[in-house]
């Protein structure tokens, strides 16, 4: 019987990987439905029916059809985490506020420059597209400033929102994975002592290693844990 949860998108897409990480952390079964972006499948009417902006990923379970990776992650945690269990969004409102704060910091401060660098340094060469050295320099400078703030924060706190691994940390995994392992800019992270410690810890989680494995699997397949 097919798993009730479906994720639409290629595992190598950072936003899709964000959702996969959340599902695996939550120990949920799901089917990954491939979307061939090189053939423009994400802009075809069938896909636009579930994601009108033509972006990956999209998500469906028996109750809802959703898009936007960070909204999907919030839904997964709210719907499927056992009541009373400390989860990726904390146990109560105050704890959740701190997690939401750092999730927004990822979304607004970390994501724009890191996404630009992932595209320029990891994807553009593979797609035989010309790199833009100005854009690379600008975004590297921006990301450095952001990581300086993280360095300070992670000197005071084991994870971004506090003592526990949360959705705020998880959200950083996909972009950081590419920058550290698929470009020559790993030093942005590894040269910062606290950021490096945090990266080693969050990327060493079993669920993240599984996502990386899925990204490296050449054939699209339905996958469940």
């Amino acid at each position: 019987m097919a798993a009730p949860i479906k994720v639409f998108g290629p595992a190598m897409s950072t936003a899709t990987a964000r959702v996969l990480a959340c599902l695996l952390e939550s120990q949920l079964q799901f089917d990954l439905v491939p979307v061939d972006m090189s053939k423009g499948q994400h802009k075809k009417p069938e896909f636009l029916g579930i994601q009108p902006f033509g972006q990956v990923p999209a998500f469906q379970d028996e109750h809802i059809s959703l898009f936007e990776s960070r909204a999907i992650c919030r839904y997964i945690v709210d719907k499927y985490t056992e009541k009373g269990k400390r989860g990726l969004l904390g146990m109560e409102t105050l704890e959740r506020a701190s997690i939401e704060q750092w999730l927004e910091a990822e979304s607004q401060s970390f994501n724009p420059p890191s996404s630009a660098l992932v595209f320029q340094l990891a994807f553009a060469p593979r797609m035989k597209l010309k790199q833009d050295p100005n854009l690379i320099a600008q975004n590297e400078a921006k990301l450095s400033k952001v990581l300086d703030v993280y360095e300070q924060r992670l000197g005071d706190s084991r994870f971004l929102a506090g003592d526990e691994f949360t959705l705020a940390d998880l959200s950083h995994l996909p972009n950081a994975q590419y920058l550290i392992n698929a470009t020559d800019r790993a030093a942005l992270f590894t040269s910062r002592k606290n950021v490096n410690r945090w990266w080693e810890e969050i990327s060493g989680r079993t669920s993240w290693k599984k996502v990386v494995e899925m990204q490296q699997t050449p054939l699209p397949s339905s996958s469940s844990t």
Partner: protein
Amino acid sequence: MVVKVYGPARAACPQRVMACLLEKGIDFQIVSVDLDSGEQKKPDFLALQPFGQVPVVEEEEEGFRLFESRAIIRYYATKHADQGTDLLGSTLKEQALVNQWLEVEAHNYNEPLFAIVLQLLVFPSMGLPTDSAVVKSNEARLSQVLDVYDQHLAKNKYLAGQFFSLADLSHLPGTQHLVTTLGMSHLVKERQHVNAWWEDISSRPAWKKVLQLVPKPLE
């Protein structure tokens, strides 16, 4: 309990927070931050908000502080769910749709809009040139996004469904700029359902109050 909101009332992100607090009937006090002189990058402010951005909110007696406007509005909408306007929806499904459209605003809407604001408002005020190619390409991006909105709002009164929520609220400051200071009101007016939605949400008393709180320029 009075919530302190740090940030000039004229800035979009503090306005997002103020609109939410007004909808919820939560008292607040604006502590202005002088962005023109770079106050937000000085050590005193960085101690409150390490990225040097507005707003940050503070409840002194509680020892509570929070930054990122969309995190702040989620917090107050949740904490005071039973007070004032319901901005989150009453079911898990409704809440998920609110979050979905909040993310759309944060990424698909805000990014091209802010790129235009930088070129047409911020750079000139700093004596820097405007790149009209950047304005054009971001206007085109925003147009495409608004086409999707128009289709969606043809079937839904508000973004997350039949109720006004944080998702709609989050669009208020940026869209206000779009139709006034940026002179791009045609983007809204040309789209029947986007226009109807904008007329509705911008006429809410809470939003009118936010605009009244913006200091008028001195003669």
